[in-house]
């Protein structure tokens, strides 16, 4: 069973990770809001990246939905400092996979504060129809998020929580992020 405070903490940590990875160091206005499943585009063209974060007693399944529109292509090209015409379908897959990796990486780093043993997968791709089988995974919590950049570019994320034992924690959001990304820590 996942407690209410654990669900709230996971939602907020995941939302924070999305905000963090999309904002980067840009001046973009990034808004992340909770939405219903109906808000997500389910066409075959939508690329769905999946990353799992797992421990002994739970598994979090994180999905990014990327619609191959001109605006998302242009956004990803700008994000990865490429010319727009570089964005073919292979590049779109690569960019969306890495963006998911960055988002889940931040989520994973925050989770390490509360769970000693968590491991993150590499990004993979799934088809939308596979998601209907997730209910076999003992889901205790599902939340969908819309990311809107400059009120023009949209991505969606989903967080699925699968637990095998009691899952309870309360995230401390007053704590400063002590990981400085991009800096070299020499040993």
């Amino acid at each position, binding site marked *: 069973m996942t407690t209410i405070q654990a669900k709230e903490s996971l939602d907020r940590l995941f939302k924070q990770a999305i905000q963090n990875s999309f904002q980067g160091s840009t001046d973009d206005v990034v808004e992340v809001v909770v939405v219903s499943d109906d808000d997500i585009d389910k066409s075959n063209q939508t690329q769905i990246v999946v990353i799992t974060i797992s421990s002994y007693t739970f598994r979090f399944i994180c999905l990014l939905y990327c619609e191959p529109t001109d605006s998302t292509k242009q956004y990803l090209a700008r994000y990865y400092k490429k010319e727009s015409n570089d964005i073919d379908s292979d590049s779109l897959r690569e960019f969306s996979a*890495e963006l998911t990796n960055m988002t889940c990486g931040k989520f994973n780093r925050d989770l390490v504060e509360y769970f000693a043993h*968590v491991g993150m997968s590499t990004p993979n791709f799934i088809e939308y129809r596979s998601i209907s089988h997730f209910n076999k995974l003992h889901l205790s919590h599902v939340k969908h998020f819309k990311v809107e950049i400059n009120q023009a570019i949209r991505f969606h994320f989903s967080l699925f929580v699968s637990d095998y034992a009691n899952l309870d924690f309360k995230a401390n959001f007053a704590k400063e992020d002590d990981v400085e990304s991009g800096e070299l820590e020499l*040993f």
Partner: protein
Amino acid sequence: MAQILVVDDSATVRNEVGDFLKKNGIEVAFAVDGRDGLAKLKADPKIKLIVCDVNMPVMDGLTMTEKVRSELNNNAVNIIMLTTESSPAMKERGKAAGIKGWIVKPFKGEAVLASFKKLLM
């Protein structure tokens, strides 16, 4: 003959890091996972620095590091992890295997270029 080997399963990261290093006059080779990284290092003994992801299919970056030291007996090459991970346990494993440093993604070239150049001397 490359100076730096970039090991990452993401083509986006390989291109991002590789393009930056090349623009700064550094010769770069690439590998797509730890096993590929071992093969590339074996084939090019001039490589002085490896910039390596942790989570990769086939062979992860920490396992690759351990094999560089134990199987290739290469204790000279410097290895820096470039990853979204930052758990103390992973860093300890990396230190025990002989890594030189740790960078949490995203890669910010200007922040690390001077250190990379020192490690190439």
